[in-house]
């Protein structure tokens, strides 16, 4: 399992922009929002927590398209299906690798993005924490979506259409975790619900995705 995570990370680094892609997109949104809505601090503060999460969600969608489709096309998936590695474990590895390559850098970059969006001081900790806890759900749900479109030549659009609705709870609770903290209210409920969406997604997605992949190989 670890071998597959390492291989995927190696490929992400070598294929150019594996790590940087999501991060660059995240920063681009953070730079564009103040230009678009104006640099009025009051307006930025009111949208900052939401924008961080919208940007993170869209950034993590970017690389999902290739999560399984490359392995599908070059025969790796077929070879894994006949190997001692169960597809469920392979999907777990893929989710891990995707999270390390996108979710983790996004969480690490959240303070910089917060700065650009005039996020008040109380929000920084929760921006990082909510992204750390919430992005595994985005990777897991994304893996499920990617498994359904693995065998398609141009599955990118369908993938987004599938994954975005599934990610809504994560987005809502993630953004609320930051917004409530910024407003000085208790965000415990929102944060726990965010953790719950992650646990649910991570528990179910590998099995659902493995089943979809096995079917697409038939």
């Amino acid at each position: 399992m670890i071998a597959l995570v390492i291989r995927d990370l190696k490929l992400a680094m070598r294929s150019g922009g594996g790590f940087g892609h999501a991060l660059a997109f995240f920063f681009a949104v953070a730079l564009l929002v103040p230009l678009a809505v104006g640099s009025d601090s009051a307006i930025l503060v009111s949208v900052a927590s939401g924008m961080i999460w919208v940007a993170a969600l869209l950034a993590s969608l970017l690389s999902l398209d290739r999560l399984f489709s490359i392995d599908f096309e070059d025969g790796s998936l077929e070879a894994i299906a006949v190997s001692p590695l169960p597809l469920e474990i392979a999907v777990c590895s893929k989710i891990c690798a995707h999270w390390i390559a996108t979710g983790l850098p996004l969480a690490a970059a959240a303070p910089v993005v917060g700065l650009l969006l005039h996020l008040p001081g109380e929000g920084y900790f929760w921006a990082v924490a909510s992204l750390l806890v919430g992005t595994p759900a985005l990777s897991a749900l994304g893996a499920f979506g990617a498994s359904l479109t693995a065998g398609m030549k141009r599955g990118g659009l369908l993938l987004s259409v599938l994954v975005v609705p599934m990610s809504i709870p994560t987005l809502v609770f993630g953004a609320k975790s930051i917004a409530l903290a910024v407003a000085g209210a208790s965000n415990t409920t929102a944060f726990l619900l965010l953790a719950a969406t992650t646990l649910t997604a991570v528990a179910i997605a590998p099995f659902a995705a493995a089943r979809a992949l096995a079917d697409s190989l038939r």
Partner: protein
Amino acid sequence: MQLRANSVSCRRGERTLFGDVGFALGGGDCLIVRGPNGSGKTTLLRTLAGISRPSTGNIFVDRDEVVFIGHSNAIKDQMTARENLEFWASVFGTADADDALKSFNLWEARNIRAICLSAGQKQRLSLSRIGISRRKIWILDEPTASLDADGSAAILSRIRSHCRNGGIAVVATHHEFEMPESKKLDLSRFQPSLRSGVRSAPESPQS
């Protein structure tokens, strides 16, 4: 150890590729699968490997002993030949990537990224998975594709010695295989008759 197919038929969409294919292989047997393009060779091999399911019939095989090398080579272009094999070695829980590189004549090319390998070298790299897997039932789809005469002879002698040591091999090929001791399966003889009773013409160009 055995590989048994019991009146297996496979469909692709609406079309039945072949019907009522049956055979039984034991240790030491080699089965050469032939047939024109579109007769279902790849489908049969994928079905035997457990990737696809037969529409009807049964396949009896120990899945933990099967290794399948298909058309697609499962090679990552951004990694070197050695890194590619080391990955598969850890998937199969074996540690002899270097031995496999040597025995498939890839030692010189071990540190070259796969994107720079020739088609023949890639094919040998793909085939070296059979060495790494240490499994006993080899299912090979066109193993000699893009190989030169020496490469083809080498893989042929490998299959022969594998069978001599009690392994099973199923090989789909267009090329003449000098294996007098092997069993033959011509898939064109298993194509379903059309309604008029005439045998369906081989379709092309899909395999």
